[in-house]
């Protein structure tokens, strides 16, 4: 493509280096140039064409197809495509190079919106999520403010995929909760530019990051020990909310005495930070199979203690572990493969 403008920095990289845009990945031009990746965005962004050109640093004059509009009302009918080329050609000659300033600012705003929406899709693609993982490793997304999460790294997420609804939030994989970024400059960044999917997809794509690590420690993967490799519900058991559970739940105390649950001001929200002591309790499917499986006579023993389950599960556990080892030998977790394939097919 033509980059005759002579600017040393592309629009994309200057956008990403703006204050408050630290969470953004640089979307590759390849990704943007593939029309399939832009499906549907035309109707969501005003002055779509101009915005796209701005993002790609294409000079409007260099392109035969481009439109050079300046009336604000064009914003409303971008979906209409019945503008005749001749008319446009005439007008372009008229205006020459210069766009009036107000027009430029409208296009600039549109370009930012368009970039954000492309970004939402890009970071869920293989190349994009890879880039985000590099940013994650470099601590670009900040840390969890919760004391018991021990400053673990967070991920930027949106609570909605529709722009204009909410600002970007930080998802903490250690307590599975979302937080407002500490710096107010992020309160102008739209959450939809990251989207609802990215946070959870990141964890499924890179299941091996040790999520209990603080941002001060270098990023590391879970060890290869048997204990670390146990999987539950498609995730490494050690990575299921490592910031929650016993010892990580705040217990209110007055002069050393715990505040009773029966008090009006007693604890009511501890469930939010709890986790079963035996994480295998969460493996509902296997538990069901063990309760109701063939050869097991205790069909209605639903309320048994987790200890009893653990004892009876032992042989099954070993079988699964062996299975997992085989899978790990191939290529990480089954979830990772699925997620990666899914992302690839999107490209």
């Amino acid at each position: 493509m033509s980059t005759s403008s002579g600017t040393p920095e592309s629009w994309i990289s200057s956008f990403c280096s703006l204050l408050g845009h630290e969470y953004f990945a640089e979307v590759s031009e390849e990704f943007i140039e593939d029309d399939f990746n832009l499906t549907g965005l035309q109707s969501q962004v005003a002055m779509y064409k101009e915005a796209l050109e701005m993002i790609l640093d294409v000079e409007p004059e260099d392109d035969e197809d481009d439109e050079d509009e300046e009336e604000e009302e064009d914003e409303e009918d971008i979906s209409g495509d019945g503008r005749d080329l001749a008319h446009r050609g005439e007008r372009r000659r008229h205006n020459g190079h210069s766009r009036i300033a107000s027009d430029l600012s409208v296009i600039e705003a549109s370009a930012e919106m368009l970039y954000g929406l492309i970004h939402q899709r890009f970071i869920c693609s293989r190349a994009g999520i890879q880039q985000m993982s590099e940013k994650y490793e470099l601590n670009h997304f900040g840390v969890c403010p919760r004391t018991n999460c021990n400053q673990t790294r967070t991920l930027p997420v949106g609570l909605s995929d529709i722009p204009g609804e909410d600002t970007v939030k930080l998802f903490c994989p250690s307590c599975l909760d979302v937080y407002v970024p500490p710096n107010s400059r992020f309160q102008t960044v739209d959450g939809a530019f990251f989207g609802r999917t990215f946070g959870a997809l990141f964890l499924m794509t890179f299941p091996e990051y040790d999520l209990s690590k603080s941002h001060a420690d270098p990023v590391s993967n879970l060890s290869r020990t048997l204990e670390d490799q146990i999987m539950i519900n498609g995730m490494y058991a050690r990575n299921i909310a490592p910031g929650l559970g016993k010892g990580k739940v705040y217990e209110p105390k007055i002069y050393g005495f715990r505040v009773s649950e029966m008090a009006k001001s007693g604890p009511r929200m501890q469930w939010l930070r709890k986790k079963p002591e035996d994480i295998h309790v969460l493996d509902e499917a296997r538990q069901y199979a063990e309760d109701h499986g063939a050869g097991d006579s205790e069909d209605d023993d639903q309320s048994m203690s987790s200890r009893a389950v653990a004892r009876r599960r032992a042989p099954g556990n070993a079988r699964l572990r062996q299975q997992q080892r085989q899978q790990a030998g191939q290529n990480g977790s089954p979830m990772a493969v699925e997620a990666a394939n899914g992302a690839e097919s999107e490209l």
Partner: protein
Amino acid sequence: MDDFVSESDSDYTSYWRDWFISSRGNEYFCEIDEDYLTDRFNLTGLNTEVQYYQYALDLVTDVFDLDCDDEMRETIEKSARNLYGLVHARYIVTTRGLAKMLEKYKKCDFGKCPRVMCHSHPLLPMGLSDIPHHKPVKLYCARCEDVYNPKSTRHAAIDGAFFGTSFHNILFQAYPQLVPPKSSERYIPRVYGFKVHAAAALVRWQNKERNDMRRRLRKMEVDSGFKDTDEDLDLEEEDEEEEDENDNTAMVEYRGGPSASMESHMTGSVA
């Protein structure tokens, strides 16, 4: 602070405590009454805790008039801040102290909860230990009942013992009407609209814990503080897993239904 120390001749006009609480980084502190500071009973035991105790106390109560070099003055100044903090921890659990801190709480002087679902609920300062120089100050949200790190590094350096482990809990015992309503609203990780199995299983387990607690409280006829009524609790129990009917889960969710075939499906999807 150095400005003040240098003008020793005007001690009685510029109140040390005024200066202290209005200086940057000390926004969490409230002003201790003169009466409280001068009652020796309130300071029991602090003389062994603080260096140059008497000078420090003189400085805090604006009667300091020792001629000494800058280095000494700096040391005393530091002791004074330390002493003020330790008295502060005792003062804020008194009736007057609680009232002062309550005002600050209402003005959001301690910041707002970073948790999205708490909708900027005001925080309260707290310590994780009552022993000085042990752990820095943390912030407590009464809505999610969890503890957060202060945003700013200058607050993160304040000793948590200057607020203590009990203050924020005593505040809500003294003002039970201020206990915020609880909410079961929470974030659920999703991929393309589908819940993620591992997180969803944990959420189900946690919801069960919550409902158990609410049932327990109802049996004892204690108000659980949740906004929705107890009738909702029974409803919730029936369709615990269908909190939002519009959404599906990524993997087939186990619902306790009859299924050997489902089991094979589950293992099939893993293999």
